[in-house]
């Protein structure tokens, strides 16, 4: 794969080392990364991480506070809150990642084509995007989820579609800027066709912007999933989800406030971690912020 057998220290490896050092100098980003990785692992291996099954009931401990058996207490059916939070992370993280991937797959090509070819198509894309951006993200998601019907898959679809307009605007804006770059002009002069210019010269140069945007879209979708599930438009009980747990906690706010507090904290911590990770990545990847 390379022109020479052994370079003392390859350019790519060197750049990676610089980026890693810059990242490690940001404690908030490092802690956020640990939380994000921890949450993803806990969700993936919930079966082994969670102390109990999310549906297991303990009738000797209904609405109990924290104890040695149940670290975060139990709900009205005696189900272990910690276990349900760990299992609930699955719905949140699945919705967060899938909705973001879906939004990227739809939005980036539209933004690239509009920004590169300009013309009436671009005008139409930009105006429709502006109209959709006038609706707040959650309102759009709730509306779409109501049309699609309640389920985790439909909630994910709704969140993904609702996240498309801002991503189109970002991809289009980046394309508009990048198409004026000298290396794009040079590629045209060297006879490159449109596919090469878009695929090799424009898209790779906006990956860091898109990566940062993804880490900001994921927490929005996680919160969105909780909202939809709280409203009964997402995950359906008894399947655990942080939104479902918040909803179920409403009648017991006085007797067992922990039922609402712990899932709420889970949402806040995970969403905040993704956001801070995104901020950190932006600072690290954007050469203008340092040096």
């Amino acid at each position: 794969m390379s022109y020479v057998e052994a370079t003392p220290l390859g350019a790519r490896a060197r750049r990676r080392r610089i980026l890693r050092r810059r990242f490690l100098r940001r404690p908030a980003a490092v802690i956020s990364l640990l939380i994000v990785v921890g949450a993803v692992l806990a969700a993936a291996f919930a079966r082994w991480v969670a102390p109990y099954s999310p549906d297991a009931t303990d009738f000797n401990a209904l609405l109990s506070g924290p104890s040695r058996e149940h670290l975060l207490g139990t709900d009205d059916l005696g189900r272990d809150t910690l276990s349900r939070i760990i299992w609930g992370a699955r719905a949140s993280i699945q919705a967060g990642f899938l909705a973001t991937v879906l939004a990227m797959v739809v939005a980036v090509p539209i933004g690239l084509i509009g920004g590169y070819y300009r013309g009436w198509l671009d005008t139409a894309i930009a105006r429709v995007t502006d109209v959709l951006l006038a609706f707040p993200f959650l309102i759009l998601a709730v509306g779409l989820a109501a049309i699609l019907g309640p389920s985790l898959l439909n909630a994910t679809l709704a969140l993904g579609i609702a996240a498309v307009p801002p991503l189109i605007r970002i991809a289009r804006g980046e394309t508009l800027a990048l198409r004026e770059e000298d290396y794009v002009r040079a590629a045209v002069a060297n006879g490159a066709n449109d596919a090469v210019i878009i695929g090799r010269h424009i898209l790779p140069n906006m990956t860091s912007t898109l990566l940062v945007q993804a880490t900001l879209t994921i927490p929005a979708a996680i919160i969105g999933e909780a909202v939809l599930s709280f409203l009964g438009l997402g995950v359906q009980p008894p399947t655990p989800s942080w939104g479902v747990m918040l909803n179920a906690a409403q009648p017991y706010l006085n007797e067992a406030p922990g039922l609402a507090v712990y899932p709420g904290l889970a949402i806040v911590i995970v969403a905040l971690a993704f956001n801070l990770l995104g901020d950190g990545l932006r600072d690290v990847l954007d050469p203008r912020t340092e040096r």
Partner: protein
Amino acid sequence: MSGPLLEVEDLSVRFDTDEGSVHAVDRMSLSLEPRQVLGVVGESGCGKSVTALSIVGLLPKTAKVTGSVRFEGLELLAASKSELRRVRGRQISFVFQEPMTSLNPVFRVGHQIEEVLREHMNLSRAAARQRVVELLDLVHIPDPARRAEEYPHQLSGGMRQRVMIAMALGCDPKILIADEPTTALDVTIQAGILDLLRELRDRLGTAIVLITHNLGVVADIADRVVVMYAGRKAEEAPVGELFAHPQHPYTIGLLGAVPRAGAAARNGRLQEIPGRVPSLSELPTHCAFADRCPRADEQSWSEVPVLRQVRPDHAVACFHPGEQ
């Protein structure tokens, strides 16, 4: 060889903007022989870059181009998009002014040259690799195999310009158009790049159109010189003839503004051309240089001078040509 390689005839370029149309180039003609180095000289905004870009259709859509550009019998102004794409890079290559930003920052330089080769020449991966190293060696980049593995930000400006030239030469083009290739570089690096261009012409037989505002650069390397002013050709002659017997007052002014050892000693300072380049928003009905010209008279202010032969192989568009 029968006839010129590239023939530009009566080329006019007009940009229609909200503030009215701008006539960037007016009835320009050029012809380029195989192996020839043609220098195109003029101040900023005289239309020299626009002329070059219009040859392979690189101007934005707002440009209205008329006239004729023939390359080996193919009329490029009437060519389709895919025909143009086959000419660009393959037959006629460009080197631009800005080596610092003309390379894609996210790919290794070797990879970028390789892409151009594979796009045009159907080479296998390994053959393209081999050729990349050859090309980098050809443009005198030391340790080419290692440099090919580096990213643009790891190379200096002169190095990057050499990479751009290697990329432009990748498909053995018949014509290399270099638009101010040395302007952004240090003087010593400039000399190196000019030496390289001359050597490439001698070794590969590539014809070169060298666009510059620097007559010193032209004297160094060109065979023939075209002086442009305000979108029109002011004077054209072989390089020795032009420097020995400049006819157009504008050319004489440019020559006086070139710093030379000895010239400063004579009268203490460089000469300047008074006034400014005229706006190109409307075509003048008089000599465009009249308001800056010491020789201007009534005729200069009432008619447009046409190009005419005043000495063997030496044409000038002026009513009062002559040295001094």
